[in-house]
């Protein structure tokens, strides 16, 4: 009888926590990458689901987002598959020209995403990406570079112009010293990638707290959107660069994605 209850409990817990961890081992990046995937509770192989990738910040890992908000609840509420890859501490989600063994962009686009699409019922028309801080940079970077893959993107407290922070967070470890590699830095900086947006009506969203050290680059980024007549949504509000701010604001991105999700 006791065993029977135990089995039921195990069964329930599997159902409640409809989440997987997939570990990728690849030559593109220096370490195996863990990706945590949350499926809506009612996940059915007969249906297709929008996929939302959430990127963590500098010094974080694939668990960071789930520590900030309970991703399973949001997967259920919005009927999204949510995947949270590991950004390997400080990869900046770019392909490093100075380190051939650190090609994060290649990994995410050509290895992780195809694998997720194969394993899960992902609606390829509805793939979204958002992130915080370094991950905000990463989300918009990958969106601008792969406009055919991502429908829309978001950034919270994003480092939307890495060239404003030449000595911080080991960006130089991936792109080389700023003084000697300014063109490379620009090619990897969101604000300089804005011009590459093909459809200026393509919606995307970003927010930053006014007391955040990243506020000025977000403000500059938005001014450039206005100049280029790019139709972005910018939420400017009180807040600093911390988990409380991200916790209170990531849902506005999920709602934003839900609104522009193709009707199936």
């Amino acid at each position, binding site marked *: 009888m006791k065993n029977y209850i135990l089995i039921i409990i195990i069964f329930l817990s599997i159902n409640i926590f409809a989440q997987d961890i997939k570990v990728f081992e690849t030559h593109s990046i220096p370490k195996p990458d863990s990706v945590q995937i949350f499926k809506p509770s009612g996940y059915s192989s007969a249906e297709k689901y929008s996929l939302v990738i959430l990127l963590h910040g500098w010094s974080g890992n694939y668990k960071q987002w789930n520590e900030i908000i309970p991703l399973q609840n949001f997967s259920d509420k919005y009927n999204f598959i949510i995947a949270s890859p590991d950004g390997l501490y400080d990869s900046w989600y770019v392909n490093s020209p100075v380190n051939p063994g650190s090609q994060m962009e290649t990994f995410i686009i050509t290895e992780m995403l195809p694998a997720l699409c194969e394993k899960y019922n992902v609606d390829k028309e509805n793939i979204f990406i958002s992130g915080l801080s370094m991950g905000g940079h990463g989300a918009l970077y990958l969106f601008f570079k792969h406009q055919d893959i991502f429908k829309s993107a978001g950034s919270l407290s994003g480092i939307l112009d890495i060239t404003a922070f030449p000595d911080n967070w080991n960006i130089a470890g991936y792109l080389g010293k700023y003084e000697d590699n300014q063109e490379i830095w620009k090619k990897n900086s969101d604000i300089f990638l804005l011009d590459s947006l093909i459809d200026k*009506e393509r*919606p995307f969203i970003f927010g930053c707290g*006014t007391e955040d050290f990243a506020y000025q680059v977000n403000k500059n980024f*938005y001014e450039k959107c*206005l100049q280029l007549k790019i*139709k*972005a*949504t*910018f*939420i*400017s*509000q*009180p807040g600093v660069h911390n988990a409380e701010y991200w916790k*209170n604001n990531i849902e*506005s991105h999920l709602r934003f994605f839900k*609104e522009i999700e193709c009707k199936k």
Partner: protein
Amino acid sequence: MKKIFTILCLLFLSGKDFSYEQIILNAPYVLKPDTILVYLPAKYSTAKQYPLVMLLHGWHQTYKFWNQVAGDLQKYADRYNFILVCPDGFWDSWYIDSPVNPRSKVETFFIKNIIPTLTSKYKVDKKNIFITGLSMGGHGSMYLFLKHPDIFKSAGSLSGTLDVSAFPNKNSMINAFGKYEVNPDNWKKNSVYNLLDNIKGKNKQIIFDCGTEDNLYFCSKKFYEKCLDLKIKATFISQPGVHKIDYWRKTFENHFRFFQSLVSK
């Protein structure tokens, strides 16, 4: 029997659909009686108190407009557990005490008549009274809030005319503010841009948004820059959109969410 039952069911259902109440109030200092729609949350109980959210319509609209924006305000009263109130703004009153028309003291009417009536008739949590509005109503909500920060906990504006003095002698405004060249101060002192100082250092929070293709966009942008200068805690949502109902439909719920996040526990 079946027929009667069906009819009763329909009556019951339709009664649920149209569960708002209508109040008509008058005062000697307004031009005509004011109609106010009140939506109580489905679970409204006289044993509890509820936040109150006032929704102000725009120029040449009526108390019915907000229900058109939201589709059905009752749904939002239920969802947020708010008492939602749509007063009439007398067409082009700009929600002020008109310096040129003694029969258009709308600010006084709101503060001395409408709000006390609501708080005595319903179980309003007086610590949680909010106000928002669109276009002229965005000016109105900020105006009433900035003049009475003791009454309102917070305020919002959608596509608001956040500096009336930027539009001197606009026909839609002359009835309320008078001719600009006769007395420009009537415009300046009633501009919410100039009233922002009233909440400086008061730890008040506000929210506003505007579409970037809206002719009024520059007002909201300027208003926000002043908020930053004065260190007023403002949330500004700057997004694609024009001065149309579809825009308000898309964004109004952000205000309800914002107010909900401020409701004192």
